[in-house]
């Protein structure tokens, strides 16, 4: 349940978008992506000062309690502004894990620090062999004196190399329950292989070799699989919201371009084929945004069909994202191929997001038609 009303969210959206328009531009993004961390640490403190980092943190922990609704607003703006900071990794995944699986002491240890911008987080759950499947955890946790020892491998940990704490999933024995552990960056036995995704965002593969985690840093939930599932749905929705922002912004700059670019004696936007293409792009973006906003509300209010709505958002946004991204390049003509324009970066972001937290095919399987409920009005 979000503590914010629709009017609060409108105000929030205006304020975030204005800040980004004033403080960020594409040139700055190109520079921050190129540095080692992949983002600007000074930005992170500004976001804390603006109150963004506490938007979805529960109120008792110093946040606003805005839930998925507030995160969707933030992520949409981040996508439009091509922000590079670990908003999704820290706020949606890391803080979300602590909120869902941690006890109150653990929440008090970490969440106010997130709000203040003192720490960044990353979730290390995925393993290469499992792909998008959530239940493929092979990383092992063994009880030891005063705590646990973790061993195994993790894949595609977003912003893993810069996080001050990693939330790592591991299983007790081959069939035991999965738990989440807070692992400090630089813990002995922790190895990282860092790389970039298609759109330049940093990720890492982890190797854990007998990494020690003290007792109090095992997140308290006895079986974290429900929390991981919920996190996955939130993250899927957040990545859709980010894609929606990117789509809308890309359509805006493409509109601007076709209104000014002249060929054959007229602005190319006067040609009907261009107009109809942009209408198609706009419709696709509207549909994706509508279903993503609905998924966010569904998660905040635990609607019974929230899983279907999140899957629908992911499928529609992936389809729309690729279409709009590719057509954005196409309608810019040769300029669409130039790296100094943001057009190609939007395409790359849209493709990357469509692959995160379950691709479209993975989410299509959520609609299990042999056990479907929609067809009650069938003719017998």
């Amino acid at each position, binding site marked *: 349940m979000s503590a914010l009303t629709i009017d609060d*969210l409108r105000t929030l959206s205006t304020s975030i978008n204005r800040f980004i328009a004033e403080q960020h531009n594409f040139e700055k993004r190109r520079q921050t992506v190129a540095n080692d961390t992949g983002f600007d640490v000074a930005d992170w403190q500004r976001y804390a000062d603006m109150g963004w980092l506490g938007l979805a943190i529960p109120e008792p922990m110093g946040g606003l309690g805005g839930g998925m609704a507030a995160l969707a607003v933030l992520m949409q703006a981040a996508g439009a502004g091509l922000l590079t900071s670990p908003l999704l990794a820290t706020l949606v995944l890391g803080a979300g894990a602590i909120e869902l699986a941690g006890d109150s002491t653990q929440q008090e240890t970490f969440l106010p620090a997130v709000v203040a911008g003192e720490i960044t987080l990353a979730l290390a759950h995925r393993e290469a062999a499992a792909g998008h499947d959530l239940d493929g955890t092979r990383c092992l946790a063994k009880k030891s004196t005063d705590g646990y020892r973790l061993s195994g491998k993790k894949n595609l940990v977003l912003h893993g190399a810069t996080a001050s704490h990693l939330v790592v999933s591991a299983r007790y024995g081959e069939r035991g329950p999965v738990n989440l552990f807070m692992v400090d960056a630089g813990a002995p036995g922790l190895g990282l292989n860092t790389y970039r995704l298609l759109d330049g965002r940093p990720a890492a593969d982890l190797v854990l070799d007998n990494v020690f985690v003290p007792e109090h840093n095992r997140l308290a939930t006895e079986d974290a699989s429900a929390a991981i599932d919920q996190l996955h749905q939130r993250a899927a929705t957040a990545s859709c919201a980010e894609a929606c922002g990117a789509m809308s912004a890309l359509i805006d700059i493409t509109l601007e371009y076709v209104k000014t670019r002249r060929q054959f004696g007229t602005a190319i936007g006067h040609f009907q084929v261009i107009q109809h293409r942009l209408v198609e792009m706009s419709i696709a973006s509207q549909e994706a945004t509508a279903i993503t906003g609905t998924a966010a509300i569904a998660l905040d209010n635990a609607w019974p069909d929230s899983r279907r709505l999140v899957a629908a958002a992911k499928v529609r946004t992936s389809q729309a994202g690729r279409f709009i991204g590719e057509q954005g390049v196409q309608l810019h003509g040769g300029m669409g191929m130039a790296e100094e324009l943001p057009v190609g970066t939007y395409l790359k972001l849209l493709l990357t997001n469509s692959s995160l937290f379950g691709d479209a095919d993975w989410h299509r399987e959520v609609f299990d038609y042999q056990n479907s409920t929609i067809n009650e*009005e069938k003719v017998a």
Partner: protein
Amino acid sequence: MSHNSQNIVEAMAGAKLSADPALQAFRNEVRQFCRANLPQDIRRKVILNQHLDKQDYVRWQKILAAKGWMAGHWPEQYGGCNWSRVQRWVFEWEIYRAGAPWLMPFGVTYVCPVIYTFGSEAQRKKYLTPTLNTDIWWAQGYSEPDAGSDLAKVKTRAVRAGDHYIVNGQKTWTTMAHWADMMFALVRTSTENKPQQGISFLLIDLHSPGITVRPIETIDGGHHVNEVFLENVQVPVENLVGDEGAGWTYAKFLLGNERLLAADVGKAIRLFSQLQGLLEVTHKRGKPLLADAVWQSRLADLEVRILSLQALGFELMAQAESGSEPGPEASVLKIVGTELMQDIAAHSIELLAHHGLAFQAEALAPGWDGELTGPSFAPGAISEYLHGRASTIYGGSSEIQRNILAKAVLEL
């Protein structure tokens, strides 16, 4: 920033509206009502996409009228329930989902709001209540052979002669004119100034001398539309709605009323359910196609589109509720809704290909008792697909809707 920019907050406002408890209660009430009151024989015909006769429509519409729901969106003073747009939308969603016949819009939704907004007191008295009770059946006289998408080019002439207009010309694609008593028509009363300015909105008694209604058979084998010829037809001056020459304004008002309702989610869900039913009874290598991975993926894509259409519909409804009139943005609903419906129907055709595409169109006629070769849905599913091709053509073709959006929303 152009009007393209989408704020996800507005989508969330729509989602909250969709979960509004009062609206949910209303939805349940409509659902219960249909379960209890929609005659089974009519429902069966609708589900099988058979041809209904006029009496089927009249019977159902009188059931709705008795409940006070025939025109719930009208103001109470004229016999409506003051429903909001979203209530009206949810009402249609539920009745079509339940398998109710098409609620003929020409009277209650198209012409009557024009009459009670712009017409005379005498016109309100004469037409509103009989239309509510389906004692008057209306047809829409808009399109002409040379005025389709370019509707302002209507040529049918109405010349004032004493207390009558003498009307000459031809209307076409006139839906259900063969059952109708009255036709509201756009006629040319002046050829001066801009074409839009010489158009008037006239109510024409189809039983008048000089009128010939000729059927047009459509590609689905049905008789839905007609040509209407008008030869020296006398129409009393009191049948002019509003001001002479203002007909274009009323036509646009009518269109604005309608755009939001274009997202026919209920029927999409019904056809989608039907498709699933067909997949259950169609086998490939001994297994129902419903279990086939390719078909599961296709179904998922269709359901995603249905859910997206619902979300977009609620978003625009929420804007309408909060008072900001959705303008041309609502064209999106028509494009998305009709194209989705066509695609669902086209999937039925692909599926029926497994049965060999036998088309026993005669099975759709009332009272047919011959033997079907394939599944009971087959003739209706093919007919629905063929008839459904019209939905992206009428009411402003999808191409025209895209032109509107390009100009009015994207400012191209």
